[in-house]
């Protein structure tokens, strides 16, 4: 559409829309610096003001959301650097700067370049937490990039002396201000990375004006810091302003002294940690030993000293004996009584008398028995003698002895009492008192 032919008549709204389209499209991200005037802060939370310089002015607004995160208070007359976009407010036919970010102005162009670099590097992710390396907790060698003649190195040495630390310092001397300082600082950081024998690098200088510190806001330094493989602490002695180095470094210290203290403080802290652990270790082992000893003692108590056990047994024994004696005595008393009773009864029976009585009885019986036995023997003897006399009288042998003899048949040994039992010619035997004879019968006769 040709806006400038004049052939086409626009309404105010159309015109305003065209203008706002062009403005908003081309000024969506501008940095403007100027003096604050007509400041108004209504209860809505928005901030309205005018930015002006000697020849012009522009209306500006900071909406509540942005206003809330402002770190400082805007006042009339303050020099401000504002970033925002242009917007046309149609109902009033005015354009204004919708301000998203403001900073109190430092030194104009430098500050602006700082802000722009900061934003560029930030967008690139150079300052992101993810990039930051942990600073070693026990650096043995510390590389320092600073001036050999400045306050920074003296402050660092003073801290080290004060803390009796054994840290090995390696200074890479650079100019920290003026033309070429930034390049020197950047190359010193790279040198340390090539040299490689340090655990941490401190980059910094003492305090000064923003111009003095400017080397630490240069992109070349920021890049060198970001590329460093060795953890790096930025220590630019200016506590109000933050430098690009501070943002790019793994750790920021407000001053070189503070950086030295950070490095050595961790050593002291580690030393303390070690001491704490050792203390715990000793305490717990002592506790364990004490407990074990207690257990052993308790067990020993359970076991007891054998001699004491014997004593105890003796004691027990004594006690039992005592009881036994007591009981025996008691028993004895009882039995004694019983015994006495029995003895009484016994003596009542008079055993002595009984013994005599029986003794006498036995004696007389013995005598009688003796006599009886003697008589009996006499009678037996007599009867035996009579019987054996009778027996002798009957015996054939006695007859034979008187001269008689007996005849008997040889054949069957039968005594011959009658001559009829034999005939002549029979063989017979004759028995004498001593010896026999065999005879032949010649003749028999009957009487």
């Amino acid at each position: 559409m040709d806006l400038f032919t004049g052939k086409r008549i626009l309404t105010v709204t159309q015109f305003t829309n065209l203008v706002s389209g062009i403005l908003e499209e081309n000024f969506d991200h501008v940095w403007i610096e100027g003096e604050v005037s007509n400041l108004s802060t209504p209860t809505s939370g928005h901030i309205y003001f005018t930015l002006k310089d000697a020849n012009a002015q522009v209306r500006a607004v900071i909406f509540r959301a942005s206003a809330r995160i402002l770190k400082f208070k805007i006042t009339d007359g303050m020099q401000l650097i504002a970033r925002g976009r242009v917007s046309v407010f149609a109902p009033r036919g005015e354009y204004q700067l919708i301000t998203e970010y403001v900073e109190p102005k430092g030194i104009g162009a430098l500050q602006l370049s700082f802000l722009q670099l900061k934003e560029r590097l930030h967008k690139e992710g150079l300052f992101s937490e993810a990039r930051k390396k942990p600073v070693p907790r026990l650096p043995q060698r510390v590389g320092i990039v600073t001036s050999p003649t400045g306050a920074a190195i003296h402050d660092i040495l003073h801290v080290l002396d004060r803390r009796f630390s054994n840290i090995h310092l390696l200074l890479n001397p650079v100019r920290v201000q003026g033309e070429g300082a930034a390049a020197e600082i950047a190359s010193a950081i790279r040198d340390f990375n090539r040299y490689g024998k340090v655990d941490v690098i401190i980059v910094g200088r003492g305090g000064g004006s923003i111009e003095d510190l400017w080397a630490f806001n240069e992109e070349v330094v920021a890049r060198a810091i970001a590329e460093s493989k060795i953890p790096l602490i930025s220590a630019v002695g200016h506590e109000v302003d933050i430098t690009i180095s501070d943002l790019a470094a793994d750790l920021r210290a407000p001053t070189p002294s503070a950086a030295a203290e950070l490095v050595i403080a961790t050593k002291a802290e580690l030393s303390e940690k070690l001491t704490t652990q050792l203390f715990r270790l000793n305490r717990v082992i002592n506790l364990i030993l004490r407990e074990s000893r207690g257990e052993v003692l308790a067990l020993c108590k359970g076991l007891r000293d054998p001699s004491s056990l014997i004593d105890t047994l003796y004691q027990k024994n004594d006690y039992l004996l005592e009881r036994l004696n007591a009981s025996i005595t008691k028993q004895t008393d009882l039995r004694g009584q019983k015994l006495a009773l029995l003895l009484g009864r016994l003596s009542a029976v008079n055993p002595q008398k009984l013994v005599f009585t029986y003794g006498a009885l036995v004696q007389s019986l013995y005598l009688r028995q003796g006599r009886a036995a003697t008589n009996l023997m006499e009678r037996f003897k007599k009867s035996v003698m009579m019987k054996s006399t009778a027996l002798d009288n009957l015996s054939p042998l006695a007859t034979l002895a008187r001269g008689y003899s007996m005849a008997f048949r040889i054949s069957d040994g039968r005594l011959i009492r009658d001559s009829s039992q034999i005939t002549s010619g029979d063989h017979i035997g004759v028995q004498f008192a001593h010896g026999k004879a065999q005879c032949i019968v010649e003749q028999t006769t009957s009487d």
Partner: protein
Amino acid sequence: MAEKFETSLAKLEDVVNRLESGELTLDEALKAFEEGVKHAAICNKKLHEAEKKIEILLKHKDGTFHTEPFNPSE
């Protein structure tokens, strides 16, 4: 170098935790204690082995480096 300190300290801490758990026999406890003392000695050595030295790093034209004692009063 620095890692070794950290490792030893972590091991020492682990030993102490195990001991404090009270779940070790006396023999195990004594072994653990010895181990702890060993780690503590390593930590202590690491803590004190660095020497106090201040030097200046100088670069030759050929890109190599050497160090010289640094006298801050210069």
